[in-house]
């Protein structure tokens, strides 16, 4: 006879979360989750952060997860609560962020009845998550929670939804301890030794090698970034990062070529184009990286290490596929490189570096800041000063961004030395990601400096979270590069659509200083270059949340740029450089 059940589903749920190490839940209450909120009220182990919109709950959990390496946890109600969370879930799916999202559901007997606040949450979120569950029996509840955490955090991480009908969390349920093994999901993490040996043989013979490392290295934990740094230094090979991979290798290291891809540096993209052996780790050859596929690094042999076999050979066929966790693969590569007595082609590497230095001397991120009193602030300069002034303080600093030009400028001009310090929406490109994400980071790191580099358009997409900052006294700094345009779209309109700025002017903007004050934060503004440092310093000194409204050059474009449908060697450089004369093809026009 089974032991007498003494705990409700809601209590079992919280116990399972606690056993999974959950300390914080980002959420928003509603009818279907009332019993869970009631159970939350009666315990102290798990802290609940009340957001102002369910999308922000997921982004906050993403910021929490990415800055700590732990699973982020979200709790929302049924119907609109769940549908509001969908953007965040897809964002986490695209960027491989481990999230467990609990959604309320109408009681099981009402499912399918078009009940109040009913939505087919598992149906809606099926393509928006790595996996999802609808708990239909109380005895499944604890097991499903444990499984969800396992699935979210193992293999390629991702979001998992657990849909919880109200009767399931009200009725008594049994508890089961965390399971060790999943019946079917057992992703491979160890690389095959023979393949590592092959990779080393290819790398040792390389004359023009490059390491191309992405977000998978960050997801594999700080040890993976450490191993990557060691491996790069051991080999002396040039290394480039994707947007998601920034921080996995110190940006100040001379071996670092900067970010690659659409807005990557000249040297990174030309080195990718001209290399003879490419080592891709935890990166997925997406369209923002490759440019025109048939012209992508045609002359190279490619080694691709990824924990997700479906990322391999998806866009670019590779010579040596290796399914493994990035950290374990890098550890194996390090050991195998040291054990191999095959020589490297030193003269060829010297020539390769000489070539890279020529490309580097082009200084593709160059911009001209007018330093005269009253000079218009260049957005790149604002980021550069933010970087220098935060670095000078030596505080632990985390940067989040929204999506657009400011995001690319931040990626280009803010230097990251360590992993997990850079949170940005890469795959989905979600405007409104940065503020809630910064909130989640600040919750996880209460004493750190957390800055959301934003645009004036993006920030308005989740501006309601200023209320959350106030409630929990989170001193997040919102640094708005305000050019009064949806800058990236405006840039494409200028370059591709005859400067017809259709609906991209940020009309009727709020007064951000007053807006900050209305939300119990501090507002400040810089209008010209001579005011910039003072505002940044005041922002960094301020003990409260801040919105710093930085008026920047409205006409500035983000360069370099590989236009859609162009190859890596057909990059557009900025006005500081010779116009390269490459336009956008008709085929390129249809791309985004």
């Amino acid at each position, binding site marked *: 006879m089974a032991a007498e059940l003494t705990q409700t589903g809601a209590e079992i749920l919280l116990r399972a979360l606690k056993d999974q190490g959950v300390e914080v839940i980002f959420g928003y209450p509603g009818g279907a989750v009332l019993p869970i909120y009631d159970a939350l009220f009666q315990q102290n182990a798990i802290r609940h952060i009340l957001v102002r919109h369910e999308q922000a709950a997921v982004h906050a959990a993403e910021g929490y997860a990415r800055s700590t390496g732990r699973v982020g946890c979200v709790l929302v109600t049924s119907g609109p609560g769940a549908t509001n969370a969908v953007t965040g879930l897809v964002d986490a799916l695209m960027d491989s962020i481990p999230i467990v999202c609990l959604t309320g559901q109408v009681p099981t007997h009402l499912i399918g009845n078009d009940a109040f606040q009913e939505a087919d949450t*598992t*149906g809606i979120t*099926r*393509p928006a998550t*790595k*996996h*999802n569950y*609808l708990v*239909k029996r109380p005895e499944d509840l604890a097991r499903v929670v444990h499984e969800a955490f396992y*699935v979210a955090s193992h*293999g*390629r991480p991702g979001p998992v939804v657990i849909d919880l009908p109200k009767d399931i969390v009200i009725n008594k349920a049994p508890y089961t301890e965390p399971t060790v093994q*999943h*019946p*079917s*999901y057992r*992703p*491979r993490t160890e*690389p*095959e030794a023979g*393949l590592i040996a092959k990779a080393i043989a290819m790398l040792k013979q390389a004359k023009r090698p490059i390491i191309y490392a992405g977000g998978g290295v960050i997801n594999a934990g700080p040890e993976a970034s450490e191993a990557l740094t060691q491996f790069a230094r051991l080999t002396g090979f040039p290394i480039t990062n994707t947007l998601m991979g920034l921080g996995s290798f110190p940006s100040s290291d001379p071996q670092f070529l900067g970010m690659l891809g659409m807005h990557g540096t000249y040297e990174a993209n030309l080195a990718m184009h001209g290399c003879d052996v490419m080592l891709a780790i935890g990166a997925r050859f997406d369209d923002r990286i490759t440019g025109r596929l048939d012209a992508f690094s045609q002359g190279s042999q490619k080694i691709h290490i990824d924990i*997700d*076999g*479906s990322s*391999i*050979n*998806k866009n670019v*066929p*590779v*010579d040596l*596929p*290796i*399914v*493994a966790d990035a950290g374990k693969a890098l550890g194996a590569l390090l050991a195998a490189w040291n054990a191999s007595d095959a020589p490297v082609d030193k003269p060829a590497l010297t020539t390769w570096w000489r070539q890279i230095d020529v490309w580097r001397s082009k200084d593709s991120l160059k911009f001209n800041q007018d330093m005269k009193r009253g000079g218009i602030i260049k957005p790149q300069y604002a980021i550069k000063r933010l970087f220098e002034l935060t670095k000078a303080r030596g505080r632990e600093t985390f940067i989040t961004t929204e999506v657009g030009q400011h995001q690319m400028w931040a990626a280009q001009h803010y230097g990251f030395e360590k992993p997990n310090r850079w949170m940005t929406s890469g795959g989905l490109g979600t405007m409104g990601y940065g503020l809630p994400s910064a909130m989640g980071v600040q919750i996880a790191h209460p004493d750190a400096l957390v800055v959301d580099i934003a645009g004036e358009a993006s920030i308005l997409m989740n501006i309601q979270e200023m209320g959350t900052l106030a409630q929990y006294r989170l001193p997040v700094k919102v640094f708005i590069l305000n050019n009064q345009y949806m800058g990236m779209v405006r840039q494409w309109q200028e370059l591709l659509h005859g400067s017809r700025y259709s609906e991209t002017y940020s009309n009727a903007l709020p007064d951000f200083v007053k807006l900050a004050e209305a939300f119990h934060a501090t507002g400040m503004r810089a209008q010209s270059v001579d005011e910039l440092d003072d505002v940044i310093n005041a922002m960094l000194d301020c003990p409260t949340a801040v919105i710093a409204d930085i008026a920047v050059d409205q006409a500035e474009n983000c360069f370099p740029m590989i236009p859609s449908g162009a190859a890596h060697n057909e990059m557009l450089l900025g006005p500081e450089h010779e116009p390269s004369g490459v336009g956008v093809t008709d085929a390129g026009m249809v791309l985004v």
Partner: protein
Amino acid sequence: MQSWFPPMASLSDTTQRSATISVLVDNEAGVLARVIGLFSGRGYNIDSLTVAPVDAGGRRSRINIVTSGTSMVIEQIKAQLDRLVPVHCVADLTMEGPHVARELALVKVIGVGEKRVEAMRVADTFRARVVDTTLGSFVFELTGATDKIDAFIELMRDLGLAEVSRSGIAALARGTRVI
């Protein structure tokens, strides 16, 4: 072993091929929707699809899918299927050696006189069974490879073909090999 990857050269082959893929899945709610959603979401073709539990407890189901695409697309389909959480294994029966694939069709033919006699004669040739009859109609049951069923239906077109119901294919590897 890591999942199997095809030689790189085969991936640049742009000719379309057909593939019969068998997938063993946990027989849980929504698993078929996951598989189908993957195909529609990523723009892959489904030419035929069958699904049924295949173990005694009804805990595992086998999904047989006939799809088509370039080598690169088919490899991608297999990799995408393989990473679904409730999927135990994915086998490309077309690539991994000889296999048998059969489907069942029920074919209703309505007619009288010479056409009815001829329909019966053709059915005999194809070893189709009559599973329902009235004075004016037959329902034939036919199993076989897809092209045999196609040929039978084609012949029935002139003989009063009224309605067809096909199962889609079930497939197994030949010999001792199991997935």
